[in-house]
């Protein structure tokens, strides 16, 4: 299957602008003389014999239909004179699609089909233009918007366009590994925060919590930390429905508590996937990627500079 080119698409884009069309009706009489000029002048001194052969008479002009008559030679794409015509064509195409199908119903967030779009480098190599990352993010926004249209009512053209922007081989990527409840009724979740890593075994039970084999009170003397660790069970009101056994290592107290938050939320999702929107709203399944900023040479800490002396 050959990759479809964008140039095949611009059906939506008229090749004369609206103003020209209006003008053309008014200036019909004057234009007739202009139009008789031979459209193409060949300035080369050496004429190839083939060119001679290929020269054909222009088709007869239909003077009745003003749209059929170009006012002047216009490139196929309106973005022809821009720095990155292909990219701009894409943007215009996607924008027109979004505009056209704006009234279609959207799928709820949990039913939106997962989509992985082309990476920036892949996109650059397919269109052969140098595109800034910020520009491409606009394209991605439009694609996400189109992807939100409910799959049942999604028009064909949208589907085709979306398919062209999908990352090759993304079908495998889309199926993330779903956890399973093992033979003992446990589900396992892993979470990280700062330097800490937590692994949580979640079984149905009565609300017992053990962290590294100790009571949660001994492990986290602050109520704040205990609350963070059990937040996902707390807001879904399931603290007396499950037993938690967590293994944490690394990091400090806050990091350990909040790594349990993430791990516990993930483990809970295996038991009850329908809780995902609630946990998302509660901020429990968003992994916090922030880490300590590294120390740089020539500085005292990550940012702190040594005191500056003039002489």
């Amino acid at each position, binding site marked *: 299957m050959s990759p479809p080119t964008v140039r095949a698409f611009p059906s939506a884009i008229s090749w004369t602008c609206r103003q020209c069309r209006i003008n053309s009706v008014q200036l019909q009489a004057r234009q007739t003389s202009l139009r008789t000029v031979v459209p193409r002048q060949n300035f080369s001194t050496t004429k190839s014999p083939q060119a001679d052969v290929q020269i054909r008479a222009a088709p007869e002009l239909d003077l009745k239909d003003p749209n059929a008559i170009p006012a002047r030679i216009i490139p196929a794409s309106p973005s022809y004179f821009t720095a990155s015509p292909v990219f701009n064509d894409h943007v215009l195409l996607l924008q027109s699609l979004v505009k056209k199908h704006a009234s279609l119903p959207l799928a709820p967030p949990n039913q939106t089909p997962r989509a992985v779009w082309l990476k920036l480098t892949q996109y650059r190599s397919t269109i052969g233009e140098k595109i800034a990352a910020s520009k491409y993010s606009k394209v991605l926004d439009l694609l996400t918007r189109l992807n939100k249209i409910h799959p049942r009512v999604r028009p064909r053209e949208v589907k085709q366009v979306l398919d062209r922007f999908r990352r090759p081989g993304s079908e495998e990527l889309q199926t993330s590994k779903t956890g399973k409840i093992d033979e*003992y009724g446990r589900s396992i979740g892993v979470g990280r925060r700062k330097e800490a890593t937590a692994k949580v075994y979640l079984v149905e039970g*009565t609300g017992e919590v053990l962290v590294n084999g100790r009571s949660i009170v001994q492990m986290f003397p602050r109520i704040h930390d205990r609350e963070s660790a059990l*937040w996902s069970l707390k*807001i879904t009101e399931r603290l007396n429905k499950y037993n938690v056994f967590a293994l944490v290592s690394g990091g400090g107290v806050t990091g350990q508590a909040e790594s349990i938050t993430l791990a516990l939320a993930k483990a809970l999702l295996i038991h009850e*996937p329908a*809780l995902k929107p*609630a946990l998302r*709203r*509660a*901020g429990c399944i968003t992994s916090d990627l922030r880490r300590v900023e590294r120390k740089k040479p020539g500085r005292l800490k990550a940012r702190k500079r040594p005191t500056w002396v003039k002489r």
Partner: protein
Amino acid sequence: MPPRISLFTTARSLAFRPSPTVVPQKRIAAVPTPSPYLLLPVQNRSASDDASKKPAAAATTPVHPDFKGPNMDQLPHVSEEQAALDKSMGGTPPDIEQGTPVQEILQRDKDAQEKAPEVLKQSINAGKSPANSTPSGSRSFSTATRRNAEGGSAGLVQFEDTRAVGLEYPDAGFGHKFPLPDIAKFPKTNNFRKRYDEVVDQVTRSLMRHGKLSQAQKNMDEILDNLRKAPAPSSGADTLKTNLPRDQLPLSPVQYLTAIIDSVAPLVKIRQQKGILGGGAAMPVPVPLQRRQRRRAAIQWILAGAENRRDTKLAERVSKELLAVAEGRGTAWERRSRLHKMATSARANVRIGLSGRPGRGRLN
């Protein structure tokens, strides 16, 4: 670009009206009595008194009906007002020696009854029901001792060789075993990062030094506890803007704190615009503040006032300053009125554009 808020509409967007700015100093002069809170430790038996030197007659107990609690002795109390009123009207005055329980006040005040917290309403209803001793069925929680013993193991999971047995899911649905929480009704505080009240969080962060959040939270808890234990602000000071009845403020310390901070919060700040007047002089231009900015200003004032106190504990200093502000004393009120006066005198410097928004002085 002019700021988006109109100076004149800021006041409208607030939950309360700003108090007249001239009041505080006058009030201090008019009411020279010291705060009842300051009188607190002065009692018959000083804390440092040796127990062995205790007079034999002082066999009082804190719950004895004639005993004056540490914060029962405040001056203009509701019951005292009632007593004065009854005396003049020839009725039987209430017992002033005893602090009036909030329930009694609520029974008299229909309006406050509606605004009362759920717990208070329940206790009032319980008092009205004839069978006072037995728990009524209207309570949202059961108090029976042995409920689980009869109904089998409700909520308990039985294990058989590491496997949970006999589980039933009456509320199970697609993708869940137990009833789903209603996301639409989730309060903002259900988010893991925003679990505390807005004002409490802001004060906590302002108390924090050297990034020690847990220490700041500890202090904040103590401050709220102190607010809970201190006497309600005297009804003479009408500086406190809140829609809760004054006597209920200590029992809901967060609302108390919010009321105190929002009451002293300034409406504007004064920006010194340079290079307009010429000659190096800066032109003061009043600029309206957002809600969070206003609170920040108030918190900073209160913390600055707390630094001048001589208590050893930070929480003590801050809570005493907060209570002083609630009573209408405290330097924060003076700073607020001074700032507002300056803003009023500099109000000509606010340039209103054609759009009706205040511009940036006379720059253009």
